[in-house]
């Protein structure tokens, strides 16, 4: 088991290299010259040339990439030519809110999706099952930005339960922090929770029909023990896989939620930087996101190994 995990970790290094190289070349395909954006249309050709030389954008792409990589390996992601800020600091400032939002959203989605899915699987075809299906269809279908605005108008402006937007760091008060995070976490969790719920239901219903479950019941095991020991444990593998996928997807959807709720996170930094052709910052953010997805996949793999002894023997 240890060797298997070590192998997976070793694989992350070439993956990261591949991702960073790919993103670097993708960025160069984007129309628009960062030099023009920094200097403005009124700059003379000489001024543009000087800046291009300084930024290194006049050199061949592989040379640019290698230069970036060498410095990145030393922990230096450069200084954004747009904001004059070091990229590492820009990302560091914005990572905590994004991680908190991701964590809370995920917890909510797993808890909510789990309960909803199990409720539906308890008696397939019952009114509870149909209700769960309805809720899940809504959860998947409703666009994030619409749900977010609706929550702001309903729960904040009309009912005044929580602030409409903004981020309060936990060290300035945990209660205020959580109050501000309620609506964004629900928004993030909606789609994710719905997908998880459907997976839980499908997986549990399938396992519940297996012969060994019937056998367990026939032995006279209490319902709770049948469920916990035989059904849930065997149903877990596909559920884990789906949760892992959702965690990876989470980062992509984060930008909308961060924009609506004015959370100073990494998604907004990514979009602002792409629009401003701030390639250094985009590179840095993508690197962080790639690490996030790889870690999520790794975590799921490890959990699989723990949950399913059969894989361990392979």
């Amino acid at each position, binding site marked *: 088991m240890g060797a298997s995990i070590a192998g997976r970790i070793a694989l992350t290094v070439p993956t990261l290299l591949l991702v960073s190289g790919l993103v670097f070349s993708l960025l160069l395909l984007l129309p*628009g010259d960062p030099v023009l954006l920094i200097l403005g249309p009124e700059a003379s050709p000489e001024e543009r040339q000087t800046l291009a030389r300084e930024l290194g954008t006049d050199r061949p792409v592989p040379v640019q990439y290698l230069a970036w990589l060498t410095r990145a390996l030393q922990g230096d992601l450069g200084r954004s030519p747009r904001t*004059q800020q070091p990229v590492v600091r820009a990302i560091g400032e914005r990572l905590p809110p994004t991680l908190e939002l991701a964590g809370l959203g995920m917890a909510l989605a797993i808890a909510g999706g789990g309960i909803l899915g199990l409720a539906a699987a308890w008696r397939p075809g019952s009114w509870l099952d149909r209700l769960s299906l309805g809720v899940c269809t809504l959860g998947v279908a409703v666009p994030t930005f619409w749900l977010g605005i609706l929550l702001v108008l309903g729960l904040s402006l009309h009912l*005044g339960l929580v*602030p409409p937007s*903004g981020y309060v760091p936990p060290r300035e008060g945990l209660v205020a922090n959580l109050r501000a995070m309620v609506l964004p976490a629900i928004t993030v969790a909606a789609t994710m929770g719905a997908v998880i719920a459907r997976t839980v239901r499908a997986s549990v219903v399938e396992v519940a029909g297996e012969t060994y479950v019937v056998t367990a019941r026939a032995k006279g095991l209490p319902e709770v023990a049948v469920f916990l020991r035989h059904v849930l444990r065997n149903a877990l593998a596909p559920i884990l896989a789906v949760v892992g996928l959702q965690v990876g997807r989470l980062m992509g959807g984060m930008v909308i939620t961060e924009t609506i709720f004015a959370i100073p996170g990494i998604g907004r930094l990514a979009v602002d930087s792409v629009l401003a052709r701030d390639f250094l910052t985009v590179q840095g953010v993508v690197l962080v996101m790639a690490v996030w997805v790889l870690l999520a996949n790794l975590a799921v793999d490890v959990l699989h190994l723990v949950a399913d002894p059969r894989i361990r023997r392979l």
Partner: protein
Amino acid sequence: MRKALIVTVLVLGLMWTGDLSAQQRGGTLRVGQARSPVSLDPHLGVSLHEFHVLYAIFDGLVMYDENLGLRPGLAESWQRVDSRTWVFRLRKGVKFHDGTDFDAAAVKWNVERIKNPETRARVRDLEVVDAVEVVDPHTVRFRLRTPTGLLPTFLAERGGLMVSPAAVQRLGPDHGRQPIGTGPYRFVEWKADDHITLARWEQYWDRDAAYLDRIVYRIIPDESVLVTNLRGGQVDLVMDVPPKDLGGLKREGSLAVHQRPGLGFYWINLNSGAPPFDKKAVRQALALALDRPAMLRGLYFGAGTPAAGPVAPASWAFNGALKPPGRDLALARRKLAEGGLPNGFTFKMLVGSTPMYRTNATAVQAQLDEIGVKAELEIAETVKVLQQVVARTYQASSTIWIGLNPDPDLVLHPLYHSQGLFNKDRYRNARVDELLDRARAAEGQDERRALYRDAVDLIVEDAADLWLYHPDVTAAMSRKVRGVPLPADGRLRIRGAWLEP
């Protein structure tokens, strides 16, 4: 009748108490804005909304009054010695927020910093300055390359905002993140994409400028959520209110909405240096095919003025007698024929990614279609549009001209002088060049007004571009916020602002 009288008296009474109640010291003003500044170094940024923050931290050598007239700032007085020499007398005893002195050497250092190509300042106005000389610690002399009466105006813009030389030398590129000026409020904290906090500068030279304890600028990127924050009382003031929300906010009793004609315009920039727009009759045909009032009503909720030309109603050079051309399709078709294109033509219009650019472009496209002119819209990143406009490889583009200042030179020269910063190889009219040159060198406003009106008449007659409408500048605020004027440039002037307890 008696009821009306009583109401009137009551209202008047309220207005009186409002005017007479003394300014209160203290409190925190929470400003909401959709866009975050990129840099708070006044010489490095470009975005207009950055002024909402910059004017609190920095003083100009020259400042604007509420009608955008010039008044003393860090310079107490100035004088044009000859056509190329100006002398500025500086206020004494002014300190930067880092405790260093503001003096003539600091002014010289600032101007040289802006002019140094390595700084990469986007302040082009000061290229006209040849040298700054320190006469004594409180007097500087500006020597100009070319004669201009506009130097004080330039020094009320970014180029006149004085940064602390010591701070810039100490902080280097980080100065844009922790700016040091001489303004009524000093920088406290900037949490990226979240908020910027300023606090009163206790040693400020004008005690009547800084009443608030603190100002917090909260960045709320989604416009609907921004407006919700204002309605819910989580922020006190929002500049640049989305036009669609103006109506709703005006109905809120707790809020005051300010709105007045602005200086900029939405326009279709025509490349008159290349076919088909090198023909005057063709451009005139397009101008006649547009229903500007309908566009303003339908696309911008009526929050503006239909445009007759590039000079806005808020400018002192505006000519009220000049009206936007009415829609006349028959005449437009005749003009097309006159231009040698009786069956219309197809052209490509570049459209930046801002939603308003797209909305305007689509409306123009539909209206031109009726005279047989097909506009193919090419939606692109604003950078790409900019690139093609600079390279002159475009035919037309849908964009906005942001009016900075009521001085007409600042729109007419860059756009319509053959040597203008944004015009090279595009629009050419020798007579316009001559009028603009003469106006630039001229002394009095009356003389200049006459010259500019003549130039605008020619530019409009030439239909150099399609000017659509001038958007209003707006601000919405809680009724507790007092002393915040809204000049036509739409920038937030926080000096003198106070909060009713």
